[in-house]
Every structure is written in structure tokens, then in C-alpha cells.
């Protein structure tokens, strides 16, 4: 259903109230972006449907409220997939939510993240106007890449109405393997395996190193042979749990992003992206002085929410300047404060 007119009316109405708008899809990521007092939620959940899909173009254009599961199903029927393999935190997950949060799954280092597959989008701007950026084609460098700027912007720059996504043919064969080992061994193996042809995931969870092959049936034996002794074929279940963060944690869940060869922290719950993304559980995010990574908030544990701040470095200041110039009246919510204040 095309809810553009309704959504535009809601946004315009909200603009008159002087309370920032929080665009929301299925509401499955409220843990990451809580609804606070003085914020108006505008839901895209009714704005659903596939605008066009031509499998031989490798492009699909979908409305933001379309459920992620519906998108996956449509692609599966045509033998194609969304390579960025986004997490789902519930059946109500939408395409708009995937794009606005910019969260990508285990295949991120090998096939790319959400922004790598976004070709264009239509947005309700902070002015209340509707504008389209980018296009439906593989290359578009006319103007600035405002589409990709909206990926991961957490709804701070406007309300996403629809998105054009690049899709790819399904791999002929997908197979996960597991090696039971401790985290330091897993990290060593991760570094060794980075070049394996067909590698599409490399994660550590539940005392096991998980790798995934995707590609042709013919090339799979070579992949298996190149793995260290002790790997066993397994279902992709554990990798899905790493993707969807389906693990228990008493402390708050913190996200660590950094170099793959940085030392492993004691609070580690899981490693993903070949070691470049790590999930830590702790009441307080403690970073060693020599830790080159960056720690940000992700999900609350049992303790009360910690104090969080925004980036204060040069890049952070430019990001805030950009938000202020693109949304001068503060029509949409700010990008969230995710940095632990110690």
C-alpha cells in the first residue's frame, strides 16, 4: 500500500509541534533506539510493497515498510538474495529499519554491508518535501550520495519511503563448518583464513570458530581441504545466532569495532566479521589503554542504563554539523549517543 501521502501529512503535522520525529518500521530495534518523552513516532509499517523487481537487472525497489521476510521470500523465488545478510530481531523487521540502522550480517567483510547494496532511495526530508536520490542502476555519481548517507543514519536525516537495492544470484551451495576452540586460537585461524576463496563468514561463538562457504559445488572440496584439521560441517544456526545477537548476557551488550588482529577482550561474547566486530558483555565498557578499537552501546543488560555521550572528535563534530545543516530545525531525532562515558 502506498502511504506516501499519509506519511507526508504526518511528518508535516509533526513539524508544527516542534517535537522531533522518530521514523519507525516494525519497532524491533527499540532496544537500540528507545522512544523517549517528547519524541513523535511516525510508523512506516503500512507503507509496504515491491515497486519493481527485474531479476536480470539485479535490482529491486521496495517500500520501507515492507517486511524483511517478504523481501527475502520474493528474492528467493527468483533465485536471488540480499548479500548483506541483515540481522532480524523479530518477524516485524522492515526494509526501512534495515537501511536506517545499517546493520549487516556475518558476510559483511566478504560481500559488503547494507550501504554497499543501496543504489538509491526516496526520502521525506526534514522540510517535509519528498525527494529521490540515486537511482535504480549500478553506477550513479550525479550529485552527492545522500542515499548512502541515510544508511545507518538511524532516521536522523529524514523518513525513508523506498529503497533501490542491488541483489545477487543465490550461491549454488552454502555450507557452514565449526572448529571447537578457545578465542585466541579462533582469532589466529581467522587471520589465516581470510583469503580462502568462497569464504562468506568467519565468526566465534559458544567456544567454536564458525566459517561459511558459499559458491559452486565444484569448488567446495578445495575450500574444505584448505581448512585446518578438526573442522566439522554444521548447520548455519550458530551463525544466525551471531547475526541476530541471539545470546544471553547479564551485562550490557557493547559493540567493539577495530582491527582484526587486536587482542581479545575478557568480556567477549562473540566475534564476527573475521574479528573486526566483537560483542562484549559488561556493566561498564572498559577499554584497555592500548586497545585500538572503538566501543559503542548496543543493548541493555540487567543493570540500569549507563551514561552515554556523543563523539567529540573532528569527525564527530563534522557529523553533527552535517546533521544541523541538513535538518536545521531539528525535525528528526538526533543520531543517538552511543559512546560510554567513563
Amino acid at each position, binding site marked *: 500500500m502506498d502511504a506516501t501521502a499519509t506519511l507526508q501529512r504526518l511528518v508535516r503535522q509533526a513539524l508544527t509541534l516542534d517535537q522531533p520525529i522518530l521514523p519507525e518500521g516494525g519497532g524491533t530495534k527499540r532496544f537500540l533506539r528507545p522512544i523517549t518523552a517528547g519524541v513523535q513516532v511516525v510508523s512506516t509499517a503500512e507503507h509496504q510493497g515491491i515497486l519493481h523487481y*527485474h531479476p*536480470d*537487472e*539485479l*535490482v529491486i525497489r521496495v517500500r520501507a515498510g515492507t517486511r524483511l521476510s517478504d523481501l527475502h521470500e520474493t528474492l528467493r523465488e527468483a533465485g536471488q538474495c540480499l548479500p548483506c545478510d541483515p540481522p532480524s530481531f523479530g518477524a516485524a523487521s522492515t526494509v526501512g529499519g534495515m537501511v536506517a540502522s545499517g546493520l549487516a550480517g556475518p558476510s559483511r567483510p566478504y560481500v559488503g554491508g547494507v*550501504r*554497499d547494496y543501496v543504489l538509491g532511495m*526516496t526520502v521525506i*526530508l526534514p*522540510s517535509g*518535501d*519528498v*525527494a*529521490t*536520490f540515486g537511482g535504480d*542502476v*549500478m*553506477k*550513479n*555519481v*550525479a*550529485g*552527492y*550520495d*545522500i542515499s548512502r548517507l541515510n*544508511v*545507518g*543514519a538511524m532516521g*536522523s536525516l529524514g523518513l525513508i519511503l523506498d529503497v533501490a537495492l542491488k541483489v*545477487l*544470484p543465490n550461491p*549454488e551451495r552454502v555450507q557452514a563448518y565449526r572448529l571447537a576452540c578457545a578465542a585466541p586460537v579462533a582469532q589466529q585461524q581467522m*587471520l589465516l583464513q*581470510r*583469503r580462502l*576463496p*568462497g569464504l562468506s563468514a568467519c565468526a566465534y561463538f559458544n567456544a567454536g570458530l564458525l566459517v561459511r562457504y558459499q*559458491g*559452486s559445488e*565444484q*569448488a567446495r572440496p*578445495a575450500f574444505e581441504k584448505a581448512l585446518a584439521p578438526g573442522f566439522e560441517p554444521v548447520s548455519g544456526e550458530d551463525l544466525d545466532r551471531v547475526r541476530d545477537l541471539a545470546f544471553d548476557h547479564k551485562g550490557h551488550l557493547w559493540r567493539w569495532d*577495530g*582491527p582484526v588482529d587486536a587482542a581479545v577482550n575478557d568480556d567477549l561474547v562473540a566475534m564476527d*566479521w573475521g574479528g573486526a*566486530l566483537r560483542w562484549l558483555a559488561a556493566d561498564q565498557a572498559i577499554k584497555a589503554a592500548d586497545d*585500538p*578499537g*572503538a566501543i559503542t552501546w548496543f543493548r541493555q543488560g540487567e543493570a540500569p542504563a549507563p551514561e552515554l555521550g556523543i*563523539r567529540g572528535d*573532528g*569527525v564527530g563534530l*563534522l*557529523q553533527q*554539523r*552535517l*546533521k544541523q*545543516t*541538513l535538518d536545521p530545525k531539528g525535525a528528526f531525532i538526533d543520531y543517538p549517543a*552511543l559512546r560510554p562515558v567513563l
Partner: protein
Amino acid sequence: MIADAVTKALRQIDDLELIEDPSRRKVYESDGLTAFAQMPPLVALPNSLQALQAVLRVCHTHHVPMVARGAGTGLSGGATPLANGLLIGLAKFNRILEIDPIKMTARVEPGVTNLAISKAVASTGLFYAPDPSSQIACTIGGNVAENSGGVHCLKYGLTLHNVCALKVMLADGEVLSLGGTGLWEDGLDLLALLHGSEGLLGLVIEVTVALRPMPEAVTVLMAGFADTASAAHAVSAVIQAGVLPAGLEMMDRLAIQAAEDFVHAGYPLEAQALLLCELDGGADEIDALSCKVQAVLQAAGAQSLVEASDAEARARLWLGRKAAFPAVGRIAPDYYCMDGTIPKRFLADVLEKISSLSEQYDLRVANVFHAGDGNLHPLILYDANDTDQFQRGGRGSGCPFYLDLRKRRSDHGRARGGAGEEALDQGCSGRGGLAQFRRLKAAFDSEELLNPGKAIPTLNRCAEFGAMHVHQGAEKHPELPRF
């Protein structure tokens, strides 16, 4: 003109070569888009980042506009000088700073050529995937500014998909590192935003590229077709079969003949269209893959089919494609290269329309392009000394991509405002889109000093802040065909 006070201040900067002599400045009057030339009043070639920063600070203080230039190979006028601005050449920043074979990255200065990166890392079994045709000469800084693609971007993506971090210098000399410490950065994605921004937001001073393992096996298929429509349909058929070729290129008859005359690549001269399909992968899978694609090409009506699997034979087939531009340059005094991307399903239609425009304007057009991406490069052949031909070329060039305006094309054969009004594309549609572009620019460069007037019209060209002038050209030239 640049004020004497500015020139004097620039002369004081250490590690900076200033080119004031007009005969030496002349080489900088245009980039690869030679139809738009402007003699720069002054050229600065800094030798160090300190010198570059000092140059930016002088210009910022004195409100002097700046245009950055890498190797000057770009075809969209990204480095066209300004009559009142400083041209800053970054080609001297040509060092490879670090190669990390474990993390599979290389950290390089912006003036390093695209091909030099792959050459430097070849011994580690890795390569840098984006390969624009000018890769032997174009710089990585320019590739970021233009978000360059190339033959292999169908499978491996554009520059954007292969860069993990950037260091940029803003108009006032501030240096920022974009891209975070891992694969994700807290906050708005400025790394993506810098790609394709054509030097309007900041100067790229360091690039960390992602490298990929060289594929074990590579093979190239060459298929000749009796008409361009069949070749265009074959392109769709290959993708539909679930194959993602490393490259899928098409050439039409005029391009085939020009290339064959020039380099003797062994192309079928009787063909009206030619497809070159490169496949890569593991040694165990390449044969099956090749068989599958050959069957698809034959079913799509290929009249000739040649496979080249050894390196020498592959290089010969690619030589014709890579030499196609200079080959066309041999058969006409000048050509104007358009560049635009369309949905693949319109390939056959658009090629036919380009052909009818070619007849209408009585100018030959050669087509050589990345068919797998729908990225067309019609080359309009003309003689610049013949004023009438030049004008027809200019008018004709405005047509091919407008003909597909309603098919949501992208057009990046952009030119700075003025002569190329038809080619000027705004990259957005709808109310307020252009205003967002202008605001975005202001957040980075509030004084409008970096490459002003390029790609995004400046205020003097676009009367009111926020107004849309998408079809300005169309209204001015109602006699031109708009499809």
C-alpha cells in the same frame, strides 16, 4: 585572476612548486574532457602535506576557489580549472605507504596510480579490483573523487566498495580520518559520502584500499552477434542464468572495426556487436562455469564464440577493448565521450535510439561499454575545427541520456555549467533535493571554495536556494528531441 597578495603568500610556502609561466600552465587547462578548457591563473604542486595545508589556509583566508587535480585523465571535467581559482596538483603524492598482506589492505597517497597499487601488491597474491580504462595513468585520489568503476565493477564493485578508510583535508586545512577503526563507524557515513563528490567536499590525502586474492583461474569468452539487440538480450540472459561475470563488455560495429584496425585483436569484423565475458573463480569450477555461459550465449544467438583461457590470449582479446577509445580517436579528429548508466532491459532500445540520433545529427557514434552494468559510453565523432559539427555534437550529446530520463537513468557525463547545460544532471528529483545538496556542501565547505560550480549548480546559476531546475535545458531548447 588571482590577487598578487595571494600569489605572494603562496610563494612563501616551503615544499611548494608554483607554476606561473603561462606555457607551463597550459598543460593544466583541461582534464580528459578537453571540450572544456580554461587556462588556470596559477598552478600549485605541493610536495608535502604541510605545504598542501598551508596552500589551503592561504586560499581559505583570501577566499580563493580551488580545484584539485590528480592525473587529469577524468572525462567528466572534475579537474577543469577556474578562471579565478588555484589549480592544485596532487600527483606528487605518489608513495605507497603500507601494504598489509594479512589484513589485505594497502595505504597509499592520493597520487598513486590505480595500476601501481595492483602491481605493488602482486607478489602477495592480491590485487585492487576497480580498474577504470585509464588505470595506467589515473590516480587513486581521482578514483575516489569520481567513484570510478571499470570492467570488473559488475562483480567487484566501484571504488566505494573497495576503500576502507580515507584521510581528507577540508577547505580550511583541517585533516580528518574517515572510516573508523574497523568496518563500521559511529555516526553518519562520511566515508561513503566522499566517494564521487568530485573534490567539492574535501581533498583526499590518503586512501586505504581493500585488496582481494587473485582468482585461481580466469577465462574470457568472445561472442559475435548479427545485431546489437541480440547482444543486449544475451547480456540479460547471462545474468538471469545466475552467473556473475567478472566483466561483461559490449562493442558495436564501428568500435569493433576501429579496434581491429588499430591493434589486430582478432575480432570478428562481420559482427554487428561483440560481447566480451570474463569469468573467474577456482580452478575446479571454471570449466563448468564457462560451459554454462557458452550455452547461454549460443542460445541467445551468438554467431561466433571464442574462448581464451591462457593469459596471452586473454590479453589479446582485452587489448582491443582497452584500446577502443584511442582506436576511435584514429578515425575522427575529435570525439565526445558520454557516460551514463541505464537499466539493462533498455539496452537494445537505447542503442537503437542512439543510432537514430546519429543519423539525425549526421555524426558517427561508436559504442563501447560495460554492458553488465548498463553503463554506456557512446563516443560521438566530430571535427572540432568544423564549428557546425562541434555544435551538432554538443546538441546530440545532450540527447542520448535525456531520451531515457523517464527510465530513471543516471548521467555522469557532467560538465561544469555553461556550455554543457544539457549534460548537467542534478542527481536528485523532487522538491528540496537540490537544497539538501547545497546544505551538505555548506557543512563541509561553507565558503564554497572547493571546485565551486562543478556538478551542483552554484547559486548564481540556480536563482533561488532550494528551487529545482532539472529541465532548464529542455525549456531553453524546445527544438531538441526529448524522449
